């Protein structure tokens, strides 16, 4: 097990569901309840220093439960190492705490995940659609969004 995952498991033993380092990519599946604490630890610990939230995205494991997944890709400009954090969310309650207090730059990624998958980030400063327009109904990257559904074209006056 790599240093990053060992430190993570040492500090948040019961919060870590599973870890692996397949293909050299350290990955940890964690519970959602203390996600902000975990992310803040990864950012602030002097041996880890994950100061760069490279990406956040959603995944729809349609037909599984828990259905949704949030994936964080973190990088340390200081230590030059990476880690991937995954959190699974149930279909009837796809809510997770926002990571904006940890990295302000993760703001738009969370809005994108909300727009495309309907994942709600609790405490986000402005959780509105970022790619689709205001009148759009539904979340188009969910696997149960009909691929041939077309929504009415909005006019310039609307």
């Amino acid at each position, binding site marked *: 097990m790599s240093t990053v995952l060992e430190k993570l498991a040492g500090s948040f033993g019961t919060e870590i569901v599973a870890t692996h380092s397949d293909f050299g990519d350290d990955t940890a599946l964690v519970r959602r309840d203390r996600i902000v604490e975990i992310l803040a630890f990864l950012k602030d610990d002097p041996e880890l220093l994950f100061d760069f939230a490279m990406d956040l995205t959603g995944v729809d494991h349609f037909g599984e439960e828990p259905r949704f997944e949030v994936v964080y890709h973190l990088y340390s400009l200081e230590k030059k190492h990476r880690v991937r954090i995954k959190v699974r969310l149930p279909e009837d309650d796809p809510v997770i705490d926002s990571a904006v207090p940890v990295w302000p730059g993760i703001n738009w990624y969370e809005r994108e995940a909300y727009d495309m998958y309907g994942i709600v980030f609790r405490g986000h400063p402005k959780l509105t659609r970022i*790619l689709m327009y205001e009148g759009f109904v539904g979340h*188009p990257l969910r696997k149960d969004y009909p691929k041939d559904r077309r929504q009415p*074209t909005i006019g310039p006056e609307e």
Partner: protein
Amino acid sequence: MKHQRDGAPGYALSTLDALVAWGRRYSLFPLTFATACCGIEVMGALGTHYDISRFGAEVVRFSPRQADVLLVAGTVNYKMAPVLRRIYDQMLEPKWVISMGACACSGGFYNNYTVLQGIDKIMPVDVYIPGCPPNPEGIIDAVVQIQKIIETGAPRAAERWTKR
């Protein structure tokens, strides 16, 4: 001297129309609404090799108030559609629209939740250029087609278009 029927266009008006049409034909100012790779081909058509100024359409106007032809080159999604429609509405009459490339004509291979399936859903289109992307000859041909519309006095698409 034989008198003309009432209501028929008079001699002077007819030649003035022809003169104005001649002027319009060789001074089509395009507004290039380039959103994708088609825009690169528009640049090629404007450049020295293809040189669209031979047809009097090289003066690109990025203000819709000064443009005669709206050249929609590229993918238009639903979020962009009201912007494009507003630009069209801001153009002064008479105006023509060229839909360039598969995306602007029909959505192209982007048959999905976000791409408008052809700009003729929101505005009249006079000339379609097929291709992905079309080459600059296609743009030249479209300009010539619009010159023919002006020359013959054929109705513009705006005169027979209904929103679908």
